[in-house]
């Protein structure tokens, strides 16, 4: 029985190998730990259905039928994965709305500070994730992140800009003395 099942799995894998589109999707999903288990399950399911399909279909249509079935499952999986990613991103953006504040502030900054703000935004996302894992209340998270964005993000950048502005004046005054 085991050898028959292995043969069926081998046949499904060979079908995937023969279809470039399917092979591309398979290679993409099998290395992705979030969906690889699902892909293996699809293949096992197809292998289990293989004897039934062999009985019903002519051998020349068998590979096409397996390809079609796997392709539709893989594309569905891809759309699910993309929706999950979009939802996750939207959730993060909604929760870390302070990043929007930083973004609008960054539009008034130079390229170097704009870059720094982008790095900060990622750090805030990770901070929010840590706080969520630590099961902090959402009001605590909102207050902490707003405080950090204002007094730990915007204010130091503004004071640094001010220091850079007065630095040449100070140096000129020093050399004048």
């Amino acid at each position, binding site marked *: 029985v085991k050898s028959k099942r292995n043969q069926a799995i081998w046949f499904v894998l060979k079908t995937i190998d023969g279809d470039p589109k399917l092979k591309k999707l398979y290679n993409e999903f099998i290395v992705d730990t979030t969906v690889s288990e699902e892909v293996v399950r699809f293949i096992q399911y197809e292998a289990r259905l293989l004897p039934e399909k062999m009985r019903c279909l002519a051998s020349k249509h068998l590979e096409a039928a397996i390809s079609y079935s796997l392709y539709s499952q893989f594309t569905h999986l891809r759309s699910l994965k993309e929706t999950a990613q979009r939802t996750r991103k939207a959730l993060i953006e909604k929760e870390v709305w302070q990043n929007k504040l930083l973004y609008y502030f960054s539009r008034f900054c130079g390229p170097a*500070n704009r870059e720094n703000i982008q790095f900060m935004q990622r750090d805030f996302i990770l901070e929010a994730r840590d706080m969520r894992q630590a099961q902090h209340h959402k009001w605590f998270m909102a207050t902490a992140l707003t405080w950090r964005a204002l007094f730990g993000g915007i204010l130091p950048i503004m004071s640094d800009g001010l220091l850079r502005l007065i630095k040449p004046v100070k140096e000129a005054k020093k050399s004048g003395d």
Partner: protein
Amino acid sequence: MESGMMNLTEKELQLLALVATEELAGREVAQRFKKETGKEISYGTLYTTFRRLKDEKLVTVRDAEDEDGRIRFFKATASGLRALHRTREHYSVLARFGLSWGGAT
């Protein structure tokens, strides 16, 4: 006094020391800073300080990106390490200064 030492502030030296031996991302630096000093450093201060250090060629940066956004890694350069070494020597001399004359309190 040699150049590249007294121009650096305390915070600049602390951050330089943290990235002296290994390349660290901004958030890792902030976490280690808290562990070492017991005080928090804001991301704004951290990135602007590193920007100054980068302008003075005391640190090198490497940018990367993941699904959460952009990351910047920092690592001290050879001149950064030299500046750190000089400062440490300077402070150790300063700490010993006057002790042989009974200057210890």
